[in-house]
Each structure stands twice: as C-alpha cells, then as structure tokens.
C-alpha cells in the first residue's frame, strides 16, 4: 500500500516534469538568463573599460617635461597648448574628444624646488575633466595619482609601507575570497531560493483552489497532513532545482562579472572551500527551501487565487530582502547561538559564516533544525487551514 503523501508527491512531480513549458520557465530559463545576462554584463563592462583605458588624450598648458614623461608611460597622449586655447579644449573635453585639460603654473618645477612650507604660496594645478565620461574620469584619477606622487617626492616627510619587497597585506587568498563571498552570496542565494519558491507554490495551492481541483483531492480518504506533506516536499524539490539552476548560472558567470570589477576580485576562487563547507551549505539550503515553501504555501492557502497569493506574499519578500542585505552591513557574521533560532536570519548568518570560514557547527545545526521545526509547525498550520471550510471553499 502506498503512502498518501508519496502519491501526491509523485503526482506533483509528474505535473512539473511533464509540463515542458513549466520546466523550462522555472528550471532552465532562470539559470540560463542569469548566466547570459551576467556574462554579457561582465564582458561589456570589461570591453567598455578596455576601450576607455586603451589611451587617454590630454591637452596641457605648461606641463613640465618630467610629468609629461610619466603620463606618457601611463598611455597618455599629451598635446601642448597655449592658455588661449584652453576654452576650445574644454569644449573638446565636454564633447568627449579629449580626456582632460591640465593647466600648470608657469615655472612649476622651479617653484616646487624652492618651495618652503608655511612661507611660499601653494602651487595650483587645474585639471578640467568630464565626470559623466568614464574615460575622462579615469584619466582624471590617473593624473591626480601621478601628481600626488610628484607632491610626495617633493615634501617627503615619511612613507607608509615603503618597503619594496614586503607584502604588508596579511590577508590570505582565503580571507579575501571569504570576505567578498560572505557579503554577496548569502544575499544572492536567499533571493534565488525565494524566487524559485514563489514561482511554484502559489500555482500548486492557490491555483488548485482557483481551478477547483483541490476539492477532488480533499474528498479522498488521504489525511490532509499527508496531502500537504506530499505537496510541500514536491514543491521543495522543484524549488531546489530552480534555485540550483539560478545558482549555477550565477556561479558560472561570476568570473566574467568579477573580472570586470578590477584586479582585487581576480583572486576569488571557490577552491578555498572544503567539502564540509559545501555540505553545511546544502543542509542550510535544503532546510531554508522547505521553510520558504511552507510559508508561501500558508499564504497561498489563505489566498483565493494565484494573483491574490502573489500580492499577499509581498511582505514576506520584503522581510527576505531586508534580512538578506544584513550581511552587506556587518563586519563579521554572528556567532552567538541565539541568533540562529530566528528564521531566515539564521540562514543568512549561517551562510555568511560558512563563506567567511567563521561558522560554528552547532549554530549551523541549530539553523537547520529550527528551520525544519518551523516548517513542521507550518505544516500543522496548513493542515488546520486545509480543514477550514471557510479558507478552502469560502463557506
């Protein structure tokens, strides 16, 4: 004899896997879209930066030879102009024909050489640039950095980290990876898991109510609790597949996206994580998806239609978003055990701990166990709701 929950579970999966359109839109498309969009974003940002950084053109008034040489080494093409031509050059900067204009005081180098602090007037170098133009902004930053170097060489009182061969940053690759991923991935994973769940649960419960097919199920002798268990488990499997697809899409496109953001992110590598870290992560994801499905199922049961369920579930989305962003504003994940009893927040903190190598196993266990416990309470609530004729049949 088959268990009622198993029969419902199999039927829900048969519905899901049998519907190619549903399978495509909820499993294949999210991952594919994320991969394509992030990869395109990454490559177009890289291309844009490459194009802009390939060469800069600057118009300069009275630029000293030494500085001109330094800038030439930084891919600047310098055009010497007279002060009278400055307004024309400014227009060219505005129009994007020039990266910037620099105006040095006359005899700049001599003035620097004879400069006495507190006695002589400070020399002023004027740089005209266009902050709305990425190339002009980058050129401005480079010129400012070059001039800062000149200034330091003139009045060098002390250096910071001046040792040539020393690596003053004591962070390991593992630390850097941990810090960056602990900030980004928990938020991303929570959002993806939630999106997968919310795309499926309302259709399965509010949709069945709306279409009148739930009544056929409720007049069978299968206990309500088994019907709910079958539905929740099947929805969790589907949501996990959707979430996995989105995660893979994100993960595979991450290198392209990170590469566009600069050199610091190039050292990010998931190889710093051990199998145990991934197992903990899977445990948290499983328990959280179960909790999400249960919560969204409760809302969907209370709703009269899929559309209404979509509206009613909005506050939950806000809570998820708020909690997800908490990792962006904290220096370290929580370690005190009581935080790990707070649903959803516990997952965020647990994931953040895993990614930053600071997780405490007992806290991760509390997270998974409390998520399962809250889901069971949710299933009990669902059973009561399924028994409520006013909720199920508007009676």
């Amino acid at each position, binding site marked *: 004899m*088959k268990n009622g929950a198993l*029969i419902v579970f199999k039927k829900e999966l048969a519905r899901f896997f049998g519907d190619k359109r549903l399978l495509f839109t909820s499993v294949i498309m999210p991952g594919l879209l994320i991969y394509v969009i992030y990869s395109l974003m990454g490559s177009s940002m890289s291309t844009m930066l490459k194009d802009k950084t390939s060469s800069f053109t600057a118009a300069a008034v009275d630029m000293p030879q030494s500085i001109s040489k330094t800038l030439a080494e930084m891919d600047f093409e310098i055009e010497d102009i007279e002060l009278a031509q400055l307004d024309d050059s400014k227009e060219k900067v505005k129009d994007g024909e020039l990266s910037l204009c620099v105006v040095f005081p006359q005899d700049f180098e001599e003035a620097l050489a004879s400069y006495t602090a507190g006695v002589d007037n400070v020399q002023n170098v004027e740089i005209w640039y266009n902050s709305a133009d990425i190339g002009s902004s980058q050129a401005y930053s480079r010129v400012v950095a070059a001039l800062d170097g000149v200034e330091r060489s003139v009045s060098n009182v002390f250096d910071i980290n001046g040792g040539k061969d020393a690596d003053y940053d004591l962070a390991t690759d593992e630390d850097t990876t941990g810090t960056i991923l602990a900030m980004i991935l928990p938020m991303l994973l929570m959002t993806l898991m939630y999106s997968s769940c919310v795309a499926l649960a309302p259709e399965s419960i509010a949709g069945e109510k709306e279409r*009148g*097919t739930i*009544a*056929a199920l409720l*007049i*069978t*002798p299968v206990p309500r609790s088994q019907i709910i268990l079958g539905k929740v488990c099947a929805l969790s499997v589907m949501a996990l597949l959707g979430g996995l697809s989105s995660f893979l899409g994100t993960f595979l496109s991450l290198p392209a996206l990170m590469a566009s953001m600069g050199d610091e992110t190039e050292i990010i590598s998931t190889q710093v994580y051990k199998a145990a870290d991934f197992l903990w992560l899977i445990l948290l994801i499983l328990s959280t998806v179960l909790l999400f499905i249960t919560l969204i199922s409760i809302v969907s049961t209370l709703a009269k239609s899929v559309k209404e369920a979509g509206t009613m579930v909005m506050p939950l989305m806000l809570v998820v978003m708020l909690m997800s962003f908490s990792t962006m504003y904290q220096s370290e994940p929580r370690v005190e055990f009581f935080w790990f009893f707070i649903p959803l927040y516990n997952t965020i903190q647990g994931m953040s701990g895993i990614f930053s190598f600071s997780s405490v196993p007992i806290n991760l266990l509390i997270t998974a166990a409390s998520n399962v416990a809250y889901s069971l309470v949710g299933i009990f609530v669902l059973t009561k709701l399924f028994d409520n004729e006013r909720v199920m049949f508007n*009676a």
Partner: protein
Amino acid sequence: MKETLKVDSVSKTFKLSAKQQKLKKLDSRTLKAVDELSFSAYSGEIFGLLGPNGAGKTTTLRMLATLIKPDSGDALLGGASAVSDPAKVRSMIGFLSSEVKLEDFFTPDYLFNYFCDLHRIDDETRDRRKAELFGRFGIDKFAHVKVANLSTGMKQKVSLVVAVAHDPDIIIFDEPTNGLDVITAKVVTDFLLELKEQGKTVVISTHIFSLIEKVCDRVGIIIDGKMVTVGTLDKITGGRPLEDVFFELYRERKGDEL
C-alpha cells in the same frame, strides 16, 4: 433494503460579506442555508433532492461529502459519521459536483490510476475497473489524451468515472445532468440506474422534474433549507405531475412569490 445514509437534523449557517448581504437583500449577515434537515436513503435506490436554486441542496450534499461540516446534527454514511469520522466516509462515497474538477493537464488514464492510488485500490482491481468503466463510457479511445483536449461531454464522463473509480457504495451527484448535451445526459442517467441495480445508494440533487420522475425512487423537496416533504414519488404526487405538487408546496411556503 438497508439504510445506508441517515441525515439527522443537519443545519448549516454561512456568514455573509456586506456585499453578499446586500445582494441577497437580507437583514442579517448570516444565512441559514440548511435548517434541521433529515432524510434517509437505502441501498439499491436513487434518492433525489429537489428544490429551486439556493434551497440548500448543494450545501447538503457538500456536508455529506465532508467538504464542509454541519453546525449541528450529523449524517451517517455506511454507519460512519460525517462529523467525527470523515476519512471513513470519504472512502465509502463517490462525489461528483461542478465544484470538483479534474486537473486538465493529465490524461484520464493517469487520473484514474492516481485516484485509485489515493483510495488504496490494488493494481489488479484498478486495471479491471478501468477497463470496465472506460469501455462503458467510450473513454478508452481517449485514455491518453489530456483532459484539456477532451470535449465537454467526455470531460464529464471522465469526472464521473474517476468519482466512482474506487467502486463506492454511496454515490452523491450534485446536478448530474446540468450543462450536458442530451446524449451525455442520457449516458449519465442510464449509469445512475445501473448503479442502483448494483445495489448502490445514489443521492442526487436537481431542479429538473423530469430527471426526478425518471430515475428517483424517493424524493425530498427542499425549500429555504427546510425539508418540506419526503417520501416515494407515488406518496408525494398521488399520481399528479411532480411539477404541480412542487409549485403547490412552494406557494404554501413562499406565497405567490416566484
């Protein structure tokens, strides 16, 4: 004949929204849909509940099918209480109503197997029943076509077959021929008579006099949630047309309001 269904003073009151109250032109926000209703049905008979729209027929059948609970009173189906032992009742009944729909993504074959599984019917019995019922209703040619792609008549036949897949002793049909073409309606009424011949208890609700006269052994007339009269057709009509008797009773209760 054995008394397989006993409805004992069941009542049901619904809370109304302000909008519903206004629509129904009622003084209070509650509506007593069924009021102390009692009747019995026996094996090998078709019992008909006759009444106008809103009389409480569907509410009564929904209570018998355990979809909703009575506020007071109880119904015993095959000896099991609809209030305290709904799971047992559900295993003994087949319920067909316009509010019970099949998922149109699946095929009749899949749905038959699915509902048999839910009723814990073994595979051998299931296959035998399926061959018998699908053949009887001409569904076998469409067994692997999604319900969404079937005609309205065929969909109704599939619903009927799925409702009785587990060979229940008590069959409850709410408006069994409503919205059906004449051919399908004939198939359904013939099947009701066949079920009766098999010794099943069949309870139907309808407002169609001819259907009652054609298939029912006994009838209960409901007006405003109350059972006005119940008995065999001969006893109620005394040889007169059922329609005349019904309107006489209706006028007695509601005056000339029609």
